[in-house]
């Protein structure tokens, strides 16, 4: 016969202080666990949102990121003539050759320098990236030393607001507008006319990357085959834009996850031990009760079950509190150096159903591990000795 849940519930509130402390310990651990997973997921989500499934980005195979990739203009022309690329009504390829560099600008908060990505784009860039919307000021004029800044740049960088001027390579560049992309990596960039960037940095003759739209998504495999076949394109690699930017996030996201999980595992061992101590004490204090229950006819299994459930209740309560606290982090946007692109990336902590499930499962695991041995001890108590103890 099962021990009624009422028994478990009443005991849960009986020894308030120690139970509260154990719950606090578990919630702290789950908080850190969830926060870390949310941070890594936030980085990935931001970067995945940066790319589209319909676009292809071509970079040098050996390059670790956009800034170390070089595509000579002859190669760019060869690529632009490939049949898989979508064409505009005037038959020009919807392709944007881009120069991507990093410049140092001071941060507004906490002083220090930030690495900001500057992207020189061609007119098709806006067609390729419809998520880019000018929300303040105006678009830069082609042929002028003007730039538009992403919302994260305007928010975090000193002197990067509309109307101000930013100096790089001996020229003053006027900031004429601010754009938003709904939380993608582009929000942390500055965009300008690629021809002007070429001219200023004396890079005429080469691009960093080439981005274009496919006629149809299934054209990607024939496109890739063409790259492998053509000798002139051997050193370059096409990737679905979304995949390219996702890979840019891997280094940072992996770093955060490995470190975070390593640390959380240790924390959880500590919290599990805390739970164990509490449960052992609970058992020790209720020895007489357990003896009575057994004398009444409840089986060992039921006693084990009751204590295990109590332990789980503590753990799940702690887990829920920790998860709830972690979910409030979603209101925070943070900015850090993305190792992959060597530049600043703003992202928000993001919660996913998987993270919720993982955190609660983790809490329950701690509850089971912490409560198991004490529960076994409770169920194994000799009835007579138990009744005799006080």
């Amino acid at each position, binding site marked *: 016969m099962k021990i009624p849940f009422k028994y478990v519930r009443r005991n849960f509130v009986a020894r308030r*202080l*120690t139970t509260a*402390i154990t719950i*606090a*310990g578990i919630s*702290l*651990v789950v*908080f*850190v666990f969830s926060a870390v997973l949310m*941070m890594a997921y936030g980085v990935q989500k931001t970067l995945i949102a940066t790319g589209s499934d319909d676009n292809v980005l071509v970079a*040098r195979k*050996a*390059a*670790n990121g956009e*800034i*170390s*990739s*070089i595509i*000579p203009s002859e190669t760019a022309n060869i690529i632009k003539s490939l049949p898989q690329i979508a064409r505009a009504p005037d038959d020009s390829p919807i392709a944007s050759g881009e120069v991507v*560099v*990093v*410049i*140092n600008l001071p941060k507004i908060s*906490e*002083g*220090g*320098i*930030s*690495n900001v990505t500057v992207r020189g784009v061609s007119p098709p860039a806006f067609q390729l990236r419809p998520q880019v919307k000018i929300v303040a000021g105006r678009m830069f004029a082609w042929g002028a030393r003007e730039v538009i800044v992403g919302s994260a740049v305007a928010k975090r960088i000193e002197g990067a607001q509309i109307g101000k001027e930013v100096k*790089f*390579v*001996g020229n003053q560049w006027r900031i004429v507008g601010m754009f938003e992309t709904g939380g993608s990596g582009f929000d942390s960039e500055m965009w300008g006319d690629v021809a002007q960037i070429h001219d200023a*940095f*004396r890079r005429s*003759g080469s691009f960093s990357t080439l981005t274009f739209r496919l006629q149809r998504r299934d054209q990607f495999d024939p496109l890739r085959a063409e790259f492998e076949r053509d000798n002139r394109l051997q*050193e370059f690699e096409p990737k679905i834009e979304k995949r390219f930017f996702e890979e840019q996030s891997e280094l940072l996201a*992996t*770093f*955060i996850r*490995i*470190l975070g999980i*390593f*640390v959380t595992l*240790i*924390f959880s*061992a*500590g919290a599990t*031990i*805390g739970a*164990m*101590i*509490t449960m*052992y*004490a609970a058992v020790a204090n209720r020895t007489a009760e357990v003896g009575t229950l057994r004398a009444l006819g409840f089986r060992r299994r039921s006693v084990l079950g009751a204590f295990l459930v109590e332990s789980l209740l503590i753990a799940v309560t702690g887990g829920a509190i920790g998860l709830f606290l972690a979910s409030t982090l979603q209101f925070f946007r*943070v*900015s*850090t*150096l993305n190792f992959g692109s*060597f530049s*600043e990336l703003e992202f928000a902590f993001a919660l996913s159903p998987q993270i919720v499930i993982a955190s609660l499962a983790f809490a329950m695991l701690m509850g089971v591990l912490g409560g198991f041995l004490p529960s076994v001890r409770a169920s194994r108590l000799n009835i007579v000795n138990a009744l005799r103890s006080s």
Partner: protein
Amino acid sequence: MRVFKLMLKNALRHKLRSFLTILGIAIAVLAFGLLRTVVTAWYSGVEASAANRLITRNAVSFIFPLPYAYRDQIAKVPGVEQITYANWFGGVYIDKNQFFARLAVDAKTIFDVYPEFIVPKDQFEAFQRERNACVIGSDIATRYNLKLGDLMQLEGDIYPGKWAFVVRGIYRPRDKTTDATQMFFHWTYVDEQMKQEMLGRGGDVGWYVIRIKNPDDAARISNDIDALFKNSRAETKTESERQFQQGFISSASVIITSLNVMSFVIIGIIMLILGNTMIMSARERTLEYAVLKTLGFSSGHLVGLIGGESLLISFLGGGFGLLFTYPFVAAFQAFVPKGWFPVFYVEFVTVVLAGLSALLVGVVASIFPIQRARRTTIVEGLRFIG
């Protein structure tokens, strides 16, 4: 002595509980040690900085080069003793997951400005003689099982093409903070190739490293150098090596702050665990404390008993935690992809901090039970059933 015996006996009364508490604290101290070691590893570049070295780079950002022609002008600035330069080669060795610094340098002067990379004389000379020779750090040699005479194939990205370098030297790191994972080859070789292969490339230096006579002149010399190139196409930013390294760290400050926050959370968890135990023990012994008070033991004695037991447990836990920190840190480094942390070891400061945390925890965890024991009157105590 009697009090100590009593403390010890009390701690051993509930062997299982004391064991679990000690284990819990040990684990938390372990985590603390790991977190702090990761934070100090981030700062290892700053720690390795020499006070008499300046870095001159392109003012726009680190990724833009400076003209080779700047070298002679900088060398003439008063206070400059020696000047060398380097280009970040990047590229791919084996695959994209092998992270270590690959630099094209001025072979004649690099080891003069960086005396912490110790190269045997004969290897140094062999390096000078061959155009495509390279010198690698001892950790790289170990990691990839490379010996003198072995070939290293690189696929360039910033410097496109396939490159092959022969290992002619392996340097030893002088200090614990020295990075032993760098690879150096000839700037002249890379420059020559670039001039031949690609139009308009060549003649570029990534950054200059300047050794100055007197560290106190750092600010003045930095300004002098930057003044030379103000309003040119490639303006420079010169700063001490320490400031340069710190710039890299400040960009990842969010992560470091998170790590530090987690360290404090850890201390909080330890306090909770130990506090929990002490409260439970104290509650169980309410009757005993009442008896002790009746016998004439003062509050001071009680404080000593409870506090002492708490400190004993926390020190044991801290001790074990520290003991296992070293192997645990080594395991972590083995787990993490190579090249993330070139310099990774447990600093003495970390050990001291861990010890102090144990002390703090031992004290704080005993406050509540001590208060309770003191406030409970003898009569209440004797009446206590639990």
